[in-house]
């Protein structure tokens, strides 16, 4: 199947917001999504963006039943590791179910890796749910390591009231 991979632009935010929700539904966490199309436009396409996006697009003749041609995305940021320096963090990688198995996910991930290496990154990191076997198998086949399983790193998060309390001087 013919497809193209390109950097996202501000006009893609509507489709990115749609696919963020589809991915969250797959991960059984749709109620956690608070980010809107407008947030993505402001946070990703201003002078100092918080993230960068890559879009996978198919020609019109392959559009979905609902008429979408933007059928996958990757969203990434730059991390800094005090041990190795700049790293790329892939926040999301998603391909609509009917377009899987055609190398689109791998092409998206490769693009993020290319851009990361070009920006001087020495590592690429992301998180995956432990029950998401198709994703884990895919990532392991690309040469990744699960450093939660092997080294014991746990992902921690502080938000809401707890973060407010912490931020009080």
């Amino acid at each position, binding site marked *: 199947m013919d497809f193209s991979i390109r950097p996202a632009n501000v006009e893609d935010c509507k489709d990115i917001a749609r696919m*963020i929700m589809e*991915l969250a539904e797959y991960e059984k*966490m749709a109620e*956690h*999504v*608070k*980010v809107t199309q407008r*947030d993505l436009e402001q946070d*990703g396409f201003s002078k100092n963006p*918080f*993230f960068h996006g890559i879009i996978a697009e198919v020609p019109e003749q392959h559009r979905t039943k609902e008429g979408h041609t933007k059928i996958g995305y990757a*969203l990434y*940021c*730059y*991390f*800094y*590791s*005090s*041990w*190795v*320096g*700049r790293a790329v*963090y892939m*926040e*999301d990688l998603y391909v609509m179910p009917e377009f899987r198995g055609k*190398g689109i996910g791998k092409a998206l*991930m*490769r693009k993020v*890796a290319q851009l*990361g*290496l070009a920006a001087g*990154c*020495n*590592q*690429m*990191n992301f*998180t*995956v*749910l*432990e*029950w998401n076997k198709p994703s884990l198998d895919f*990532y392991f086949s*690309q*040469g*990744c*390591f*699960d*450093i*939660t399983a092997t080294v014991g*790193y*746990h*992902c*921690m998060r*502080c*938000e809401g*009231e707890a*973060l407010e309390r*912490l*931020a009080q*001087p």
Partner: protein
Amino acid sequence: MCAAVNMNFKIRRATKEDCKDISRMIMELAVFEKMPDQVKTSHEELERDGFCQNPLFECLVAEVPEEHKSNEGFTIIGYGLYFYTYSTWKGRSLYLDDLYVMPEFRAQVSPPPVQASVTTAGGNGIGKALLSKVAEVGKKNQCVQLRLTVLNWNTPARDFYAAKGAQDLTVSSGWHFIHFTEQSLDDLVNEAPKD
């Protein structure tokens, strides 16, 4: 060692001149985490990456006055290194890469023999002050989340963050941290599709 009660310390933004101390403490933390061979950064790289026009990270340091300097003579005795990131669910976030206070400044008072201390505090509050300052910086920049990783065997750290309201997403939801090293990243990029 007894706690130095009411130890005077301040938390401030790191300067380029602090990078030698930050580099020293990065290694101390890596030694504690049993991975010193993983540290590849030098203080020159920290100077370049953190103090250029578009810095890749920000850093806070904890400083004590001369009269409280460490056994080796250091007055920069803790740091918090963080950067801005993004959650597609919640929005702007901060990621805390490192939080460290030199052991002699954690100053845990031995619990009285009859009754265990109810908290891990009893130290000087330097770790908490660093963490709070990071959270404050995040709040000023409309960040709605603070993320970090902790090693599963590092019970004092896990207890510290849990006490501050952090959730362990690995335990609660099964999130695992996945990692491509430089070699496997190169392999991925070089494996170009045949057109």
